């Protein structure tokens, strides 16, 4: 999600940011009146459905929040992590399940090469250290959608560790005040996905579909370097873009390909970290920041009222806009981790350590994968700024909207107008229309060619800027006409005869001596009135800048 879009979602919080900066993202509890005597018996749940910015009271120390993330990304592969059944989103229940996925006795896991490559590429893109040797373990727990009773994961020695993810946040009200933050990537590990359970409360049963069971997941653990919902959401968005650029995951949250759990705690600056809660079920980019901020505020309220935070798992209820406790009180889960007895250690090589005469199908060369890495989003953004002279925040918006970059590049290819003009039209006019009607780029009624043609007309000065906007509106109605046709139909062509314009200007000046007097007396806005009058006279077929120039020339003579 682009930082600008986030700001639209949470207008109330810009106030806080403008003052304290997103860096500290400090929060205050709501004013409780004369004293905070801890007598507020009401639960925070009912009281605080929305986050509001608060002013810190004088003399009281502020709170600092700490947010860590555990992100599960489904690997984009044809087959599953340890079996040859297909990976596909919507399919008849249990049709993509092999004997191994169903955990029938006598079946064994066989590692999918593509999943390992995906993990290594993701690790390289996040500047991780790739462990030349990594191990697989079993994590045991009982649940109907986990037929084996354990999940194969990498707990002891994951495939990649110690990386970092950089993202940009806005620290002021102005779009240009962007800073780069980084969050450390603790580790990336390969693990199996579980099946899906559909709860049928009516008949007191659960229906199990194992199509998803065994799909490869990348678990990315981000250290608690983030301090608010916006930072977390921006980091997740950047990760999405990276995974999509690499092709390692489609990272579509709506389809469950990217799932985020947050670990949140608050403390007073200078004091040790507070008890953390885990918030699960953050499966939409929209609610991610909201849920995290809610939980931060809930914890602050709780502590300020003399309560304490339980180390529990909570779920975000998006209808109520609040977090609710999730697990029943079973006490801590004991997963009984043990080495996966059926899988030897996973060994990776680089060009220097490749065993000679090895079957290339059976070895993975990290250096080769590094060379094949595609352009990462932050490099793309830098390139756009350099190549097209646009501002960094423009490049952010271009990348954040699905399909927008491609659209932009197609227009640039086909038009002779300057890239800066294209940038402005795509980011302001085109995107504005899309957002107004809540459309995706792919649903746009205006094609890149149409916009390119329109910009050509503008560039040739065949039409004026206001006329171009009119043509664009017509194009949006998608009646199949080209820009040239619309211009002809609506007679929007600019006056090509300079003499006619001179005439019109002169006659307007003569017809309105009062306005001319006003202008000569020094009122600068009088010229706009004159321009307007001329425009009306030309039936909108003259460019305002040209009109102004002619008028000024005539007035000064």
């Amino acid at each position, binding site marked *: 999600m682009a930082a600008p879009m986030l700001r639209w979602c949470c207008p109330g919080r810009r106030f806080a940011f403008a003052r304290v900066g997103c860096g500290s993202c400090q929060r205050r509890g709501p004013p409780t009146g004369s004293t905070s005597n801890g007598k507020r018996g009401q639960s925070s749940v009912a009281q605080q459905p929305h986050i509001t910015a608060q002013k810190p009271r004088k003399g009281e120390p502020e709170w600092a929040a700490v947010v860590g993330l555990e992100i599960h990304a489904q690997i984009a592969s044809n087959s599953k992590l340890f079996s040859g059944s297909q990976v596909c989103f919507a399919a008849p229940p249990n049709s993509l399940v092999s004997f191994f996925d169903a955990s029938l006795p006598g079946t064994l896991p066989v590692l999918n090469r593509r999943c390992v490559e995906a993990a290594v590429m993701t690790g390289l893109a996040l500047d991780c250290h790739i462990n030349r040797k990594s191990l697989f373990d079993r994590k045991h727990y*009982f649940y109907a959608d986990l037929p084996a009773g354990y999940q194969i994961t990498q707990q002891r020695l994951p495939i990649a560790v110690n990386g970092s993810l950089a993202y940009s946040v806005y620290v002021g009200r102005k779009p240009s005040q962007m800073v780069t933050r980084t969050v450390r990537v603790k580790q990336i590990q390969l693990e199996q996905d579980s099946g899906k359970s559909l709860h049928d409360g009516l008949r007191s049963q659960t229906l199990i579909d194992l199509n998803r069971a065994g799909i490869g997941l990348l678990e990315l653990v981000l250290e608690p370097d983030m301090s608010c919902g916006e930072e977390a959401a921006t980091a997740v968005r950047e990760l999405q873009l990276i995974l999509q650029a690499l092709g390692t995951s489609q990272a579509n949250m709506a389809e469950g390909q990217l799932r985020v759990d947050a670990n949140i705690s608050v403390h007073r600056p200078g004091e040790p970290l507070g008890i953390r809660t885990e918030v699960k079920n953050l499966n939409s980019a929209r609610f991610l920041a909201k849920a995290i901020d809610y939980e931060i505020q809930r914890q602050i309220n709780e502590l300020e009222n003399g309560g304490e935070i339980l180390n529990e798992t909570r779920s975000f209820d998006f209808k109520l806009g609040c977090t609710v406790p999730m697990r029943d009180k079973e006490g801590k889960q004991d997963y009984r981790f043990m080495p996966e007895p059926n899988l030897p250690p996973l060994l990776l090589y680089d060009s220097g350590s490749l065993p000679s005469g090895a079957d290339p199908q059976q070895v993975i060369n990290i250096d080769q994968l590094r060379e094949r890495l595609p352009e990462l989003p932050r490099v793309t953004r830098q390139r756009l700024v350099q190549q097209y002279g646009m501002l960094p925040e423009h490049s952010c918006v271009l990348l954040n909207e699905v399909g927008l970059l491609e659209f932009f590049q197609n227009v640039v290819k086909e038009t002779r107008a300057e890239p800066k003009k294209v940038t402005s039209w795509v980011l302001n006019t085109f995107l504005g229309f899309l957002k107004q009607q809540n459309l995706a780029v792919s649903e746009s009624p205006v094609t890149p060619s149409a916009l390119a043609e329109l910009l050509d007309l503008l560039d040739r000065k065949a039409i004026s800027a206001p006329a171009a906007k009119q043509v664009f509106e017509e194009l949006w109605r998608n009646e199949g006409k080209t820009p040239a046709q619309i211009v002809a139909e609506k007679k929007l062509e600019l006056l090509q005869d300079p003499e006619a314009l001179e005439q019109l200007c002169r006659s307007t000046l003569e017809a309105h001596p009062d306005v001319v007097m006003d202008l000569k007396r020094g009122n600068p806005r009088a010229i706009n009135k004159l321009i307007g009058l001329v425009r009306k006279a030309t039936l909108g077929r003259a460019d305002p800048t040209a009109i102004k120039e002619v008028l000024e020339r005539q007035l000064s003579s």
Partner: protein
Amino acid sequence: MWARAVHLGLRAAARGRRGFTSKADPQGSGRVTGELIQHLERLSLVDFGSQEAVARLEKAIAFADRLRAVNTDGVEPMESVLEDRCLYLRSDNVVEGSCAEELLQNSHRVVEEYFVAPPGNISWSKLDEKQPFSHR
């Protein structure tokens, strides 16, 4: 076999793996408390049921304890007996699946090609009510 797995789990827990609050004496007096039995039953869904079973468990722990007689100072522990083997990498092709009918035959209850399971996990308190165990 399961006894050894239980013992390994205990030893691993003793080393302070995450999530485990140790209820047994890691050095192993061999005695297994009622609390530990309850905990193990919950974790493994294995029914210890009787004094005999508990006694057998203690004997199994004692048997496995003989491993401690081996001096392993300065020896790097093995990860698995497959350590020196090559991990085979499979190409990313779809070669299995499409056997829903066959798989569903294994299930006691089926609803429209879904396996049917009881709702969530049955809470421990419900099980306690059904069959009270007597432990030491």
